[in-house]
């Protein structure tokens, strides 16, 4: 489908652009992806208002996370999260066995060092979506072998 590929290409160009910018600003080897994460945050924040329009009020936090795993993921990546784990104390782990931004690369370890670039946007997306639902969180991602990816959500309680 043409509309899917547009989103994927734009996403990878945003990452290239952000990396280019950081290279100009400092010549350290570290890449700064906070811009990409923020773009994700803004997009997640806005899309959440639309997605939850026809939805009944969420019962609790777990209900909200289930929504993220099913409908939110379905809307953006055309598939559902494969596995959701939680310790019931504000830590949630979402596992996607074939994360869409990583499926185009070779499986295994060849491009593993570049994987963090391709998950920053999605971390922001989740964080923004949750922020609009009044859940403040820190989202990190972990890639162990290529197409599968784990997102860790730490909910910040006050």
């Amino acid at each position, binding site marked *: 489908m043409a509309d899917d590929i547009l989103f994927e290409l734009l996403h990878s160009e945003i990452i290239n652009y952000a990396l280019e910018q950081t290279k100009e600003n400092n010549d350290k080897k570290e890449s700064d992806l906070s811009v990409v994460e923020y773009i994700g945050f803004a997009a997640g924040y806005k899309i959440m*208002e*639309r997605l*939850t329009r026809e939805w*009944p009020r969420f*019962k*609790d936090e777990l209900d909200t996370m289930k929504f993220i795993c099913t409908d939110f993921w379905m809307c953006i990546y055309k598939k559902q999260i494969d596995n959701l784990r939680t310790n019931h104390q504000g830590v949630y782990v979402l596992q996607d066995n074939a994360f869409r931004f990583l499926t185009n690369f070779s499986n295994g370890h060849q491009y593993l060092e570049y994987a963090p670039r391709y998950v920053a946007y999605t971390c922001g997306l989740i964080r923004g979506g949750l922020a609009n639902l*009044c859940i403040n969180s820190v989202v990190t991602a972990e890639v162990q072998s290529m197409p599968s990816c784990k997102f860790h959500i730490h909910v910040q309680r006050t």
Partner: protein
Amino acid sequence: MAVCVAVIGKDNSPLYIGGIGNDTSTDNELSRQWLVHTALDALEERLTTTNNNTSGSNSNTTRTDMRDLYLGLLYSTDTHKIYGYVTNTRIKLVLVTSSTSPSGSNIRDAEVRTALRRLHALYADAICNPFHLPGDQITSQKFDKQVKNLMLNNV
């Protein structure tokens, strides 16, 4: 006939208050603000009872209508009726009708519900404006125009 609609943010700060100035008693900003803000306590009360019901008894007694975004009539005075709607993102939409005018006194619940649902759709569109920052007042003229249209035509 709707006298005024308001969009109130997560932290109870008004994002948008608009009305049609054909009703002389509510023709000024101050009385609109007052009308809308009287409803906030009622809104908060409804929301907290919803949460207690669901978390306290393990969702056995969860009534489906409690999970509805539309909260119905919140508050009524001699001259006005105030209806509320809270989205999943804790944005509060308030609609005030006049009970003195002939068209407002026998307004049906279903009409208010559809009007508020359409207002929610308009709000979602306004939020997607890239120049709008979350938590800011809505200054979009398009939104203002659409809301005024909604008030004139629907309710």
